[in-house]
C-alpha cells in the first residue's frame, strides 16, 4: 500500500503577528475555562471554536465531532511585547552587531564582502558573526557611537553608558528592542544568516501569542467528576490573567513602577510557557509543587515528541509474554499461546478464489476453543471500510453478506509468518521472522538454539510478537528476516545461531571416544531425526547383534558430501599433534559426510564458532544449515538423555590427599607473601622499572596468590576427571570454565577492586578483624576457602566487595555502550550501497567508492574473506589445508 500523497519537503520559518492573527479563529480574552454547567466560556481558553474534546459537542469552526476535528488556533493580544526566550541569543547578537540609532549592520559593504565572499561565488554560505565586529565602535553609516549591550539571563537586555566616569546600565524594554529590530534592513539580515522573507527578527519579540487548539491540551475528568486541566492550559490562564491586569493598569494610567513589574511578570509567564527549564528563571510549578511541562518539555528528551512519539511509535497487532524453551520446535518456529492467536489477526481480502475459505473463517467465529480447532475470524471489513466485530450473534449474517471486496481479519494459525523480538534490540538479529505454531499454555515457546541472537534466557524474559499486515511485509519477512537467513552474523561472517549449553554437552558425550550402540539405542537416539535408513552396522556384539558406533550416529545428520578437518575446543594444543591418535579425541575429521575421528563440541556446532555449521552454510545453503541445527540439537538432547546429566554438591568432593595438597599450596603461598613483605619491610626489595617499591610488592603478591589459586585448580582438576559433569561442560565449551571449578572445589582466590587487592575500608585496614597496616594475604581479600567449604565472615565481606564492583561495572557499561550505539546509529543510518557499488548517504554524498574496498558483504563472507578457499579445497581434495 503506497500512501496517496507524499510529503516532499518541510520548510521552517517564523510566524509573523499578521499570520498568527490570520490563522486564529478566535481572540481569547477570558482566563476561565468552563462555566458552572461544565460548558466552555465563549472567548475562554476552551472556546468551542478552538476544537472540541467532549464527545457530543461539535466544533464551531469546522462543525465536526470531537474525533474528526483537528482543532484550531486562537490568539491572545499581549498588552506589551515580550521576548521569546528561545531567541534571546539571536536578539543579543543582532543588538550587538547593528547600530543603535540607524539599525544598520556595523560594517561597510566591503567588510561584509570580505567575510561572506562575493555574491556569485560558490561558497557564499558563511555568515557574519558577533566576533567580526569590534566592540563599541562607531557606526560607519550614521557615525553614532555604539554602546555595550549587556544580557542578563533569562531575558533582560541593557545598554551600558559611561556617565561621569561611572558605568550606568540602562534597561532596554522589549518594545525598545522590537523597534530596533524592525529597522534592520533585509540585506543586512541576509548577511547575518537570517532569512527576512520568513523570519523578520522583530517577530521574535511577541506581540500576539497563538493559543494552541484544545485537542493539544485536553482536560481530563477525574473520578470525582472534577476537571483537571492540562499544564499548558494552566500556563495560558496565568498569561491571560496577567495580560488583563496589565491592560487595566495601563488604561488606568498606573505608575511606571507597577507597569514595569507587570511587564516583567508577563514576560516570566510567557517565558515559562515556552520553556520551563530556562537557566536563571525559577520554573513555574503546579499546585502540588511539580514543575509544569510546557512547550519545550513536550518536545525534548527521550519521552518527548521527537524521540518518544515521532521516531518511535506504538503499534497494534503485537503481543508480549514470557518465553520458555521447547527443543522440539524447529529454529524457525515459535510457539504461541492460543489466547494470543485468538486475539491477533491478519487481514485477508476476499476474492472469488478464496471466498468459500473466508466464509468458513467467518462462520468459525472469534472463539477458538482448542489448538486443534480450525481458526476463525474476529472482524469483517466492508468495502466502505466499516469494521464489523464478529460475534456469535452475527456470524451467519456476515458470512451471507461476504463477497469480493470485503476484507476478513482472520486469526493466527500454524505457519503464519510473525516477527519476534527481544529488547534491547541491539542488532538486526534482535528481530527475526518465525513461523507460528499455536500451542497450549501461556508462554511463547522457542528453540533454545535461537537464544544467542536474541540474547535471551528463560529466567523470566519476555518477548514481543508482531503480525505483518500486508503481503509485501510478509514476503519481506520471509525472505529477508527469517531465522534461516539470519544464521550468519553480519558482524563477523560466522554463525550466530547454533547449539548452546546442553546441546554441546550432549553432542560431546555422544561423540566422545568410540562407543557402540545396540539397535534399540540407535533408534532411541535417532527417533526424531528425518532419516530413512540406518547405515551398515560397524560391528556385532558377541551374540551377533549389529552394533553402530557413536560417530556413525552423528554422521547421520551431516550432509553426504561434507569434508573437513579441525580441532575441537577440547584440544589441549599439544606441541606435536597426534592427529587421529589424539588422546583427547580432539582431532575432528569428516570424510564424505562421515565423522571419522574427533569429538563434536562447541567448535563444531556451537553458536558463534560452530565450524561444521559454517561449512554447511557456505556449501549447502541456509536451508540445509537450519535443518542441520534442528537435527543436531534433537540428536544431542537424546544423547544427553541416554545417560542423564546432572551436577550436585558432591560432584565437588575431593579426597583427603587433595585437600591436604590444597592446604599445603595455600599455606605455602601465604607464607611466601609474608616472606616478601618481610623483604620489603627490611628495604631489600628491588623495584621493577617504572614502579614504586609498594607497587612492586603488590604485583609480586598478586602473582604469588594468583599462581596458588591456579595450583589448587590443577589439584582439583586432577581428581575430577571426565566423569564429572562440570569438567565435561568446561572441556566441551558448553558452560563454565576450569576457573569456575577451581573456585568451587579448590579456592576462591584473590578478590580485587580495580585490579588491585582490596585496600579500602577502615583507617589503615580493610576490616576491624585485622591489625592496622597489616599487609598479609588474608587481610587484603585473599580467600583460601572454596564455595564448597564455605567462606569465613571476613572472606564473605571481601567477596561481597569484589562482587559489588562487578555489579556497578555492568550498570555503568550498559548506559555508556547504549549511548555510544545510539550515536553511531544516528551518524551512519543514512548510508546505503548504491546500484553502482558505492556507499552513499541518502542525500547522494559518496562515502566509499566500493563498499569495504572489495564489495564483499561481511554477512556473506567467511569470517571476512570473500571466498572460503580453505573450505573449498578441503571439500574438493578431501585433505587438510593449513
Amino acid at each position: 500500500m503506497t500512501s496517496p500523497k507524499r510529503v516532499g519537503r518541510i520548510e521552517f520559518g517564523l510566524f509573523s503577528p499578521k499570520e498568527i492573527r490570520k490563522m486564529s479563529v478566535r481572540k481569547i480574552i477570558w482566563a476561565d475555562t468552563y462555566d458552572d454547567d461544565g460548558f466552555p466560556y465563549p472567548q475562554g481558553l476552551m472556546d468551542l471554536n478552538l476544537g472540541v474534546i467532549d464527545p457530543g459537542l461539535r466544533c464551531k469552526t469546522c462543525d465536526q465531532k470531537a474525533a474528526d476535528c483537528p482543532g484550531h488556533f486562537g490568539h491572545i493580544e499581549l498588552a506589551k511585547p515580550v521576548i521569546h526566550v528561545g531567541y534571546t541569543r539571536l536578539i543579543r547578537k543582532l543588538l550587538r552587531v547593528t547600530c543603535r540609532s540607524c539599525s544598520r549592520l556595523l560594517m561597510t559593504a566591503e567588510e561584509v564582502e570580505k567575510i561572506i565572499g562575493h555574491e556569485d561565488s560558490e561558497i557564499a554560505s558563511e555568515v557574519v558573526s558577533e566576533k567580526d565586529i569590534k566592540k563599541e565602535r562607531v557606526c560607519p553609516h550614521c557615525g553614532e557611537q555604539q554602546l555595550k549591550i549587556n544580557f542578563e539571563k533569562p531575558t533582560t537586555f541593557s545598554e551600558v553608558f559611561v556617565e561621569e566616569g561611572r558605568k550606568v546600565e540602562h534597561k532596554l524594554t522589549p518594545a525598545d528592542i522590537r523597534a530596533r529590530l524592525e529597522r534592520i534592513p533585509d540585506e543586512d539580515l541576509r548577511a547575518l544568516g537570517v532569512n527576512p522573507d520568513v523570519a523578520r527578527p522583530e517577530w521574535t519579540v511577541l506581540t500576539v501569542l497563538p493559543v494552541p487548539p484544545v485537542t493539544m491540551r485536553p482536560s481530563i475528568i477525574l473520578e470525582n467528576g472534577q476537571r483537571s486541566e492540562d499544564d499548558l492550559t494552566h500556563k495560558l490562564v496565568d498569561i491571560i490573567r496577567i495580560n488583563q491586569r496589565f491592560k487595566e493598569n495601563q488604561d488606568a494610567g498606573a505608575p511606571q513602577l507597577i507597569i514595569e513589574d507587570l511587564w516583567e511578570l508577563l514576560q516570566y509567564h510567557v517565558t515559562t510557557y515556552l520553556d520551563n527549564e530556562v537557566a536563571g528563571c525559577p520554573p513555574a510549578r503546579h499546585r502540588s509543587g511539580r514543575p509544569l511541562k510546557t512547550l519545550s518539555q513536550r518536545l525534548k528528551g527521550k519521552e518527548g515528541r521527537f524521540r518518544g512519539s515521532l521516531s518511535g511509535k506504538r503499534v497494534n497487532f503485537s503481543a508480549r509474554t514470557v518465553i520458555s524453551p521447547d527443543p522440539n520446535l524447529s529454529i524457525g518456529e515459535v510457539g504461541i499461546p492460543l489466547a494470543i492467536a485468538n486475539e491477533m489477526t491478519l487481514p485477508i481480502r476476499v476474492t472469488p478464489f478464496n471466498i468459500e475459505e473466508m466464509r468458513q473463517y467467518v462462520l468459525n467465529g472469534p472463539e477458538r476453543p482448542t489448538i486443534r480447532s480450525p481458526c476463525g475470524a474476529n472482524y469483517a471489513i466492508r468495502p466502505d471500510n466499516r469494521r464489523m466485530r464478529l460475534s456469535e450473534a452475527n456470524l451467519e449474517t456476515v458470512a451471507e453478506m461476504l463477497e469480493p471486496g470485503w476484507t476478513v481479519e482472520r486469526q493466527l494459525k500454524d505457519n503464519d509468518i510473525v516477527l519476534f523480538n527481544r529488547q534491547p534490540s541491539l542488532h538486526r538479529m534482535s528481530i527475526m521472522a518465525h513461523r507460528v505454531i499455536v500451542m497450549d499454555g501461556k508462554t511463547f515457546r522457542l528453540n533454545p538454539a535461537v537464544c544467542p541472537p536474541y540474547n535471551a534466557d528463560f529466567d523470566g524474559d519476555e518477548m514481543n510478537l508482531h503480525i505483518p499486515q500486508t503481503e509485501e511485509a510478509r514476503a519481506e519477512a520471509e525472505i529477508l528476516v527469517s531465522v534461516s537467513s539470519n544464521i550468519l552474523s553480519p558482524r563477523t561472517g560466522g554463525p550466530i545461531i547454533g547449539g548452546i549449553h546442553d546441546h554441546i554437552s550432549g553432542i560431546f558425550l555422544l561423540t566422545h571416544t568410540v562407543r557402540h550402540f545396540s539397535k534399540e539405542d540407535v533408534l532411541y537416539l535417532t527417533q526424531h531425526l528425518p532419516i530413512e535408513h540406518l547405515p551398515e552396522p560397524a560391528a556385532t556384539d558377541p551374540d551377533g547383534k549389529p552394533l553402530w558406533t557413536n560417530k556413525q550416529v552423528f554422521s547421520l545428520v551431516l550432509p553426504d558430501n561434507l569434508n573437513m578437518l579441525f580441532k575441537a575446543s577440547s584440544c589441549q594444543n599439544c606441541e606435536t599433534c597426534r592427529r587421529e591418535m589424539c588422546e583427547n579425541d580432539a582431532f575432528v575429521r569428516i570424510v564424505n559426510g562421515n565423522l571419522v575421528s574427533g569429538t563434536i563440541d562447541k567448535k563444531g556446532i556451537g553458536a558463534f564458532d560452530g565450524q561444521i555449521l559454517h561449512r554447511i552454510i557456505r556449501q549447502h545453503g541456509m536451508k540445509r544449515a537450519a535443518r542441520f541445527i534442528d537435527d543436531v540439537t534433537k540428536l544431542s538432547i537424546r544423547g544427553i538423555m541416554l545417560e542423564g546429566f546432572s551436577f550436585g554438591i558432591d560432584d565437588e568432593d575431593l579426597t583427603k590427599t587433595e585437600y591436604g595438597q590444597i592446604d599445603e599450596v595455600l599455606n605455602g603461598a601465604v607464607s611466601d607473601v609474608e616472606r616478601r613483605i618481610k623483604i620489603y619491610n627490611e628495604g631489600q626489595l628491588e623495584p621493577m622499572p617504572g614502579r614504586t617499591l609498594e607497587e612492586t610488592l603488590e604485583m609480586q603478591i598478586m602473582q604469588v596468590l594468583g599462581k596458588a589459586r591456579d595450583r589448587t585448580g590443577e589439584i582439583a582438576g586432577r581428581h575430577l576427571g571426565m566423569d564429572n559433569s562440570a569438567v565435561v561442560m568446561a572441556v566441551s565449551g558448553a558452560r563454565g570454565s576450569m576457573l569456575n571449578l577451581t573456585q568451587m572445589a579448590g579456592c576462591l582466590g584473590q578478590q580485587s577492586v580495580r585490579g588491585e587487592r582490596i585496600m579500602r575500608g577502615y583507617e589503615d585496614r580493610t576490616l576491624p578483624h585485622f591489625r592496622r597496616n597489616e599487609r598479609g594475604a588474608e587481610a587484603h581479600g585473599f580467600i583460601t576457602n572454596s564455595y564448597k567449604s564455605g567462606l569465613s565472615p571476613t572472606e564473605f565481606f571481601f567477596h561481597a566487595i569484589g562482587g559489588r564492583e562487578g555489579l556497578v561495572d555492568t550498570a555503568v557499561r550498559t548506559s555508556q555502550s547504549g549511548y555510544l550505539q545510539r550515536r553511531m546509529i544516528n551518524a551512519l543510518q543514512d548510508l546505503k550501497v548504491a546500484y553502482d557499488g558505492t556507499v552513499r548517504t541518502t542525500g547522494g554524498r559518496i562515502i566509499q567508492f566500493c563498499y569495504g574496498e572489495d564489495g564483499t558483504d561481511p554477512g556473506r563472507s567467511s569470517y571476512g574473506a570473500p571466498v572460503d578457499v580453505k573450505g573449498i579445497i578441503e571439500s574438493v581434495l578431501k585433505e587438510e589445508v593449513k
Partner: protein
Amino acid sequence: MNSDMEQRIDTLDLPYRTREDLKTSLAERDVTDEEFDRILEMVFSEYRKSRIEPCEAVGVVAAQSIGEPGTQMTMRTFHYAGVAEINVTLGLPRLIEIMDARREPSTPTMAVYLLNDWAFNRDRAREVSWQIEAAPLHEFGDITIDMENMQVLVMLNKAVCDRRKIGVEEILETAPRKIREKRHFRDFDVEGDPKRASLTFTPKNRESYQNLFQLAEHVRHVIVQGIDDIERVVVRKEGGEYILYTEGSNLKDVFEVEGVDTSRTRSNNISEIADVLGIEAGRNAIIQEALSTLNEQGIGVDVRHIMLVADMMCMEGEVKQIGRHGIAGEKESVLSRAAFEVTVNHLLDAAIANEVDELNGVTENVIVGQPIQLGTGDVKLIAKPINLKI
C-alpha cells in the same frame, strides 16, 4: 600445482586476498586439472554470492556490529597491554574515546620503531630513547637550595651527562631557557659555569623564601633533554629488534630524532596522526585503533564495518566526532538533528535560517510516516499488473 595453474590464478577476476589464498593453499599439492577446475568453479560461485547487494543499509549494520558487543566489553580503564610498564586505556572507554575523536587520548602512547642501524643494538636503541624521553634537570646532578645566599645551586654530574650523550654546555643553555619558555617562570637570574659544570639560579625577589622554593621546584623539574610530552620510554626487544614504547605522544618531534623509523612508528593519538601525516593516515589510525581495541577484548568485528565508520568520520578532511559535535550535529536534515539531541534549539535555529528539510534520510521519513529510502524501501521500480481482471 604447476606454474600453469598459478598463472591462471593470477589472471582471475578475484580480489588479491582470494588469489593469494588460492596460491598458498594449493602450493606443493598435487591437483589434477579436473580438481583445479572444480575448485575454481566453486570459488567463483561463492565469490558471486558474497557480493554486497544494492540498497543494503550498510551504515546501520556497521553501527550495530560495533555497538552491540559494547555491552560485553570491560569498563576497566587501565590495563597493561603488551608492555607491562605502560598503562593504556582499553575496552569500552577507549572505544568511546576513538569515536569521540578527542584531541588527546586519556593515555597517549607511542611505539617508536628504529632504523636498521639502531634497531638491533641495545645501546644505540637506548641512545635514541634518551633523545626522546623527557628528562628533568635533577637527573643530571645535585640541586641544592642555598638559603643563606638565596640561591639554587645545580652541580651537574659529568658522568651522567656523558652517559646520556648530552653536553654540559647544552644543559647550561637549555635549562634556563626552558624554565622561561615552557614553565613560564621568568623572575630569576642565572649564571652558568661550564668549567665547574654548575648553574646558579638567583630569584629576582630576594625576600621571599616561598619564591625561592618555587624556583627550586622549577629548576628541579625543567626538562633539559628529550621531548616534553613524552614522560617515559621503555625499550623492549620484540622479534629480534628493539622497540621503544613511550608514555605520552608527540609524533612531530619524535620524527625529528635521528634513528627513528618514521614509516613504522605509530601513536595512539588519532588527531595527532591526522594533523602530522594527513587525513588518510588518520583514517587508517582509526581503523587500526578500533580494531585492536575490539580484538584485544576478544570481540571479532569485520574490518569493513570499522572502515565505514572511519570513512564517515574522515569524510570532510578532518577527523569528526560521532555525535552531537560532529557527524550527527552537522546533518542537513533539521528533523534528524532535532530527533537526536538538543531538539528545541535545532528547531528554533532552523526557523530563523529558513532551513528546508528535503526528507531524504531515515529519521525524517519515519517522523512524517513515509517509507524510508533504504533496503526494500528504496526500490522505485514497480511492475505494472497486466491482464488483471476479476
